[in-house]
C-alpha cells in the first residue's frame, strides 16, 4: 500500500518512479565551512514563520501599531518569545551572513565562474539590512520612530532625488498612517518575495558551480555527510539565539512614538559603525553615512575584478584578503567604539533610565486599561486622575506647589484632612496656608503701620476680619485702618484650643462629606463654631454671610468645583481677598469637576499615593 502511494506521488510529481537519482556530491568532502548558507536559509525560514504569527496580531496604523505590539509583548502567551526570535533573528542573519561572506572570500569563491553567486550574495545582504530598517519602524515606539527619522533624514540628503526618496518612503510629507502601511507592505510582502527569489537563484547557482574544492580530491554525498553538519550548525545557532532572546526577555519595546518627546535615537546595532563614523566625521556626517557604505559595497562588488587570477591559495590573494579583513575589522572596531561611547555617557544612562520608566509605565497602563482608540500616546491619559493632574500642573501648580515661587496656600497630599484643618486653624497665616498671599502680606503691613502709630484700638472694627476658607474668628479686633493703603483682613488664629479645637475641626471636616465623621464631636464642635466663627462665617448653603467665606460643603467636590469656578464669589473669598483667577471661562465644567475630584482624593492621600500615580 505504502509503496503504491509513493509510486503514485512520484509519478505525479514527475519523479523517476523506478530508481533513486544520483545523490548531490560535495567536492572535497563535507565541511563545517559550508554550513553558513544552510543556517541563513533556516534563519530566513524562522523569520517567515515568526513573522506570519506576528502579522496575525499586528496593526499597521499610527493609532494601533504600538498597542498591538505591546499586546503581543505583554499579554499574549509567549508573544515576547516569538517577537524576540523575530527581532534578534534579524541580527543573527547579519552575523551569519558576515561569516558566510568571510568564508566565501577566504575560499576564493567569488572568482570566475562564481561572480554572479557572489554578487547575489552581496545584494541579499544589503536587502536584509534594508529589511531590518523597514521592520524597526513598525513597532511605532520611541526607539523605532526616532531611528527611522534619522535614517530617512540621511536618505533625504541623497543628491538630486533625496527629498523624493524620503517622501516616497514616508508616503507623503510627514509620518503618518501611510508611513506604516508602506513600510509594512515592504516588510511583509515586497522584501520577502524579492529575497526569496534571489535566495533561490543564489543557491541554485551556487550548487551548479559546486564547492571550490581546495581541500582534497574526494567527493562525498551531501546527504547525510553535509546535512548532519548543517543541522548541527542550525541547532547550535537556534540555541544561541534562544538563549540571547531569553536573557533579553525578547525585544525592547519603548514608550509609544511621540513626536514631541525627545529620545536618544540609536540605529540597530549593525548600523552602529556608521553612527560612530558620523560622530567622528563631525560636519561631514551625511557624506560619511552614505560614502562609507558605498565604499564597502563597492569594494565587495569589485573584488572579483580586482583579484582575477585563478590561483585559489590564500597566499596568492593575501593582499586582497588583508584588505577585506581590514574593512571588517574597521567595521567591528567602529561598532565597539560606538557602544563604548554610549557606555561612557553618564547623562545618556540617566536619560535611558528615565525613558525606560516611561516605557514601563505606558506598557503597564496598556495592560491594565487598554490603549485608547485615539492612539498609543493617549495610554498615559488612562492613568487615574491623569486629566485633573495635567490641568493642575498647567493651571494650579505655579501658585500652589513647592518649591516653586508659590503665591497661594500649599496644596498636597492630606489637604483638608483633620491634621491639615487643625494646623490651619492654629495658624491661618502660616507659610503653608495663607502666609504667602497678598491678603496676609497686606494685613501684616497694616498691623505694622498701626504699631508705628502706637495707637490703641478705640473702636472695634465693625466688620471683623474676613476669613478665608476656615472658621475661627479672631478674638482680638484690629485697629481701624485707613481707607486707603493696606487693610488687615486676614483671619486670626483660633481662640479655641485643645480638645475643643478637635471638636471644631470635626465640624469643618464633616462638611467635606467624609464617611468617618464622629457625630458626637460634631455636636460638641457646633457650640464652638457658634461661639468663635459665626461672626464671619456661616454653614448655611448659598448664603453670603459677611465678607468671609461661606463654609457650607467645605472640602467637598461641589465646594471645590464652585470655588475653582469663581474664588471671588461673595460666598467664597469675595473680590478683595483673593488673587486667584476664576476658571469658569478657562476650564470646562467637566475639567473643573475633575480638578475637584482630584482635590477630594488628595484629602485621604499620602505622598506615596501621589507618587504611585506616576509621572505625567
Amino acid at each position: 500500500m505504502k509503496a503504491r502511494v509513493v509510486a503514485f506521488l512520484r509519478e505525479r510529481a514527475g519523479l523517476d518512479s523506478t530508481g533513486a537519482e544520483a545523490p548531490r556530491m560535495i567536492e572535497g568532502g563535507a565541511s563545517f565551512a559550508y554550513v553558513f548558507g544552510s543556517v541563513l536559509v533556516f534563519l530566513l525560514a524562522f523569520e517567515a514563520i515568526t513573522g506570519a504569527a506576528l502579522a496575525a496580531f499586528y496593526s499597521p496604523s499610527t493609532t494601533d501599531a504600538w498597542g498591538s505590539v505591546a499586546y503581543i509583548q505583554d499579554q499574549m502567551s509567549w508573544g515576547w518569545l516569538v517577537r524576540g526570535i523575530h527581532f534578534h533573528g534579524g541580527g543573527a542573519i547579519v552575523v551569519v551572513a558576515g561569516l558566510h561572506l568571510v568564508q566565501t572570500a577566504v575560499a576564493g569563491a567569488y572568482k570566475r565562474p562564481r561572480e554572479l553567486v557572489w554578487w547575489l550574495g552581496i545584494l541579499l545582504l544589503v536587502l536584509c539590512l534594508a529589511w531590518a530598517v523597514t521592520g524597526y519602524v513598525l513597532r511605532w515606539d520611541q526607539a523605532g520612530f526616532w531611528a527611522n527619522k534619522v535614517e530617512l533624514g540621511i536618505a533625504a540628503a541623497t543628491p538630486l532625488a533625496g527629498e523624493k526618496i524620503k517622501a516616497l518612503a514616508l508616503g507623503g510629507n510627514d509620518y503618518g498612517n501611510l508611513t506604516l502601511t508602506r513600510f509594512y507592505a515592504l516588510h511583509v510582502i515586497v522584501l520577502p518575495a524579492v529575497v526569496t527569489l534571489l535566495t533561490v537563484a543564489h543557491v541554485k547557482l551556487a550548487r551548479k558551480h559546486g564547492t571550490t574544492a581546495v581541500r582534497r580530491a574526494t567527493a562525498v554525498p551531501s546527504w547525510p555527510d553535509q546535512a548532519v553538519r548543517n543541522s548541527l550548525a542550525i541547532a547550535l545557532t537556534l540555541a544561541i539565539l534562544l538563549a540571547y532572546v531569553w536573557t533579553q526577555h525578547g525585544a525592547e519595546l519603548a514608550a509609544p512614538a511621540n513626536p514631541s518627546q525627545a529620545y536618544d535615537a540609536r540605529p540597530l546595532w549593525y548600523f552602529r559603525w556608521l553612527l560612530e563614523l558620523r560622530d567622528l566625521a563631525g560636519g561631514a556626517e551625511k557624506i560619511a553615512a552614505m560614502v562609507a557604505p558605498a565604499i564597502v559595497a563597492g569594494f565587495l562588488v569589485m573584488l572579483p575584478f580586482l583579484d582575477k587570477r585563478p590561483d585559489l591559495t590564500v597566499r596568492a590573494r593575501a593582499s586582497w584578503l588583508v584588505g577585506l579583513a581590514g574593512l571588517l575589522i574597521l567595521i567591528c572596531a567602529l561598532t565597539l567604539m560606538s557602544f563604548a561611547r554610549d557606555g561612557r555617557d553618564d547623562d545618556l544612562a540617566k536619560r535611558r533610565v528615565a525613558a525606560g520608566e516611561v516605557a514601563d509605565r505606558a506598557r503597564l497602563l496598556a495592560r491594565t486599561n487598554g490603549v485608547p482608540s485615539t492612539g498609543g500616546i493617549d495610554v498615559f491619559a488612562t492613568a487615574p486622575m491623569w486629566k485633573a493632574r495635567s490641568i493642575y500642573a498647567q493651571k494650579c501648580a505655579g501658585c500652589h506647589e513647592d518649591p516653586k515661587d508659590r503665591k497661594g496656600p500649599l496644596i498636597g497630599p492630606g489637604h483638608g484632612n483633620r491634621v491639615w484643618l487643625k494646623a490651619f486653624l492654629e495658624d491661618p497665616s502660616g507659610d503653608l496656608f495663607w502666609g504667602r498671599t497678598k491678603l496676609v502680606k497686606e494685613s501684616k503691613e497694616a498691623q505694622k503701620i498701626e504699631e508705628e502709630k502706637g495707637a490703641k484700638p478705640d473702636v472695634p472694627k465693625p466688620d471683623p476680619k474676613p476669613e478665608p476658607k476656615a472658621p475661627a474668628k479672631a478674638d482680638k479686633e484690629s485697629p481701624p485702618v485707613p481707607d486707603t493703603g493696606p487693610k488687615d483682613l486676614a483671619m486670626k488664629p483660633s481662640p479655641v484650643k485643645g480638645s475643643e479645637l478637635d471638636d471644631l475641626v470635626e465640624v469643618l471636616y464633616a462638611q467635606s462629606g467624609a464617611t468617618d465623621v464622629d457625630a458626637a464631636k460634631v455636636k460638641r464642635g457646633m457650640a464652638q463654631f457658634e461661639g468663635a466663627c459665626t461672626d464671619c462665617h456661616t454653614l448655611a448653603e448659598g448664603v453670603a454671610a459677611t465678607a468671609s467665606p461661606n463654609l457650607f460643603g467645605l472640602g467637598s467636590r461641589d465646594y471645590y468645583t464652585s470655588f475653582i469656578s469663581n474664588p471671588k464669589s461673595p460666598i467664597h473669598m469675595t473680590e478683595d481677598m483673593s488673587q486667584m483667577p476664576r476658571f469658569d471661562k478657562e476650564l470646562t465644567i467637566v475639567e473643573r469637576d475633575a480638578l475637584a475630584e482630584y482635590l477630594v482624593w488628595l484629602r485621604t492621600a499620602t505622598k506615596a499615593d501621589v507618587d504611585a500615580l506616576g509621572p505625567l
Partner: protein
Amino acid sequence: MTSGTVIDMGENDPDRRKFLKVATCAMGGGVGIVVAAPVLRLVLDPAGKETVTSPTEPLDLGAANRLRIGEPPRRVEVIAPLVKDAWSASQNVVLGAAWIRRTGPNPGDLDARSAVCPHLGCAVGWDPDKGNYLCPCHDSRFAIGGDKLSGPSERGLDALPLKVVDGRLKLTWIRFATGRSTPEPV
C-alpha cells in the same frame, strides 16, 4: 558537479551513515519543534480568551414608558460604554442590536430578543406586513414572541434580560452560539 569517486575513508560505513541520517533528522525535528511551539502557542492564544469584552453593567435604553402594549417590536442598538478589543479600549461601541416590546400592563411585562439570527448570525429584521421577524440571509421566520416559524434556524430568537430600574429600561447583552438547538452563551 556530481563527479568524483567516493573514496572509502570510513565515511561509507553503513552504520555510521545511518547514524548521521538519524542524527540529522532528530536535530531537524528538534529545531522545528522549538520554533513551531512558541509560534503555535501565540497564534492559538486568543482562541480561549475574551478578546472583545462585554459590558459588565446592564445597558440603559431610555425611559420605560416609551414602550406601549400592542406596538410592534422596536429596534434598539446595543451600545457599550467601554469595550476592550484586544489592545484597544474604545468608548460607545456598537455591539449589535435587539428588538424590544411591551407584552403586558405590569412594569416587568417586557420582551427583548437579540437581533442576531440563531442560525448563522445575520441581523434579523421585523416584517411589518406579516407581523413576524425575518432573517434576510436564509429566510428564517420567527413569531413576535420569538418562536421559530419557518426556515433553517434550529431555535427561536434568543431572549435577552430586560428590566425596568427607576423607570429606565436596562438590557443585559449576551452573545449566543449560533447553529445550536438550545441557546448557549459564548
